[in-house]
């Protein structure tokens, strides 16, 4: 059970860290200054969440691990983030959609997690929920703005949906270490679908008719990633790999 808790905590941490890292790639490249700041704010929120989870995981492991070793010295196969968060930024539409699909999930997840029997997880979820509420609001409005915007922005949203939808199924497929977590993924899935429908409706977009038929990619939670994660880690871990133990 304790092993499950450690793995589950690491999974939560990895999700936040990798998406934070992805969003941070926009720093200095945002479409306008205000959105550059907005997306990097979200990035920092997520990395902050990741730190809380890593610190807790390190204390549970009690084997000399630290938050830094858990972020900078894990290999690709040891990362347990879902595939959605490691997908490339693409254009602004794809970044926005990825954020919306994930924040929608994270919002519902943290709502359950904040009354978790594990006090520490509950406390981190409660603290993070306010941030995530804003991420969801911000990304929802951008999905609507682009979907219901110009022909160009609408088409880019369609392309983004085409690109990312196949990674959403994994969010609701429990990994072994998730099964005893007490989190009800079916409840999250219902709420998630409802929110997607509302926002897509406003955005004049139509969710792909999944109906159990659409093929969904999975494996990230078990450490089997798309080719993108390796590139992310190369960049993320470069300093610690090149200069072990360096500080500044």
């Amino acid at each position, binding site marked *: 059970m304790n092993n499950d808790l450690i793995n589950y905590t690491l999974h939560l941490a990895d999700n936040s860290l990798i998406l934070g890292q992805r969003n941070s790639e926009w*720093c200095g490249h945002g479409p306008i*200054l205000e959105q550059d700041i907005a997306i990097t*704010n979200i990035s920092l929120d997520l990395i902050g969440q990741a730190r809380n989870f890593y610190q807790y995981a390190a204390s549970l492991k009690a084997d000399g691990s630290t938050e830094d070793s858990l972020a900078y010295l894990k290999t690709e196969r040891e990362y347990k983030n879902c595939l959605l968060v490691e997908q490339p930024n693409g254009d602004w539409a794809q970044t926005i959609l990825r954020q919306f699909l994930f924040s929608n999930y994270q919002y519902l997840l943290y709502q359950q997690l904040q009354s978790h029997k594990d006090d520490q997880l509950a406390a981190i979820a409660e603290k993070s929920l306010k941030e995530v509420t804003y991420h969801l609001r911000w990304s929802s*409005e951008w999905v609507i703005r682009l979907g219901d915007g110009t022909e160009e922005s609408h088409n880019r949203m369609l392309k983004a949906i085409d690109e990312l939808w196949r990674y959403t199924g994994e969010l609701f497929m429990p990994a072994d270490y998730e099964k005893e977590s007490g989190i009800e993924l079916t409840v999250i899935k219902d709420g998630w679908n409802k929110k997607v429908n509302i926002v897509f409706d406003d955005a004049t977009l139509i969710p792909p008719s999944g109906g159990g038929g659409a093929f969904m990619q999975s494996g990230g939670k078990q450490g089997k990633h798309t080719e993108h994660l390796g590139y992310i880690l190369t960049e993320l871990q470069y300093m610690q790999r090149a200069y072990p133990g360096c500080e500044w």
Partner: protein
Amino acid sequence: MDFIRKYYYGDIPEDKTGGTIISKDSKSDWPLWEVFIRSKQGLDHKHVGSLHAADAQMAIENARDVYTRRMEGVSIWVVESKYITASNPEEAGELYEPAVDKIYRHPTFYDLPDEVNHM
């Protein structure tokens, strides 16, 4: 077929952008908004700066992201800059200078009873 595609950090691959690239000046299509922040309950909103946004909702969110990152505020007002009417600096002479030699307009010429506080 390019199976291996290297993305440098921050680069947005051209083939992902689709369509034509809109001129970098497109941000100037977004109107300018003036931002007012109230730093504490009970205080008044103060002008803190301006930003670009497509609509009022986006202006509020941009203001939140740009101007309240370090706990500067508890309330935000935005107004499109074009709705602000400003006095003309060239008219400063006739507008403000006549007040210079009318110091009797300051309430310092009245003897106030000691019991009156907070004046």
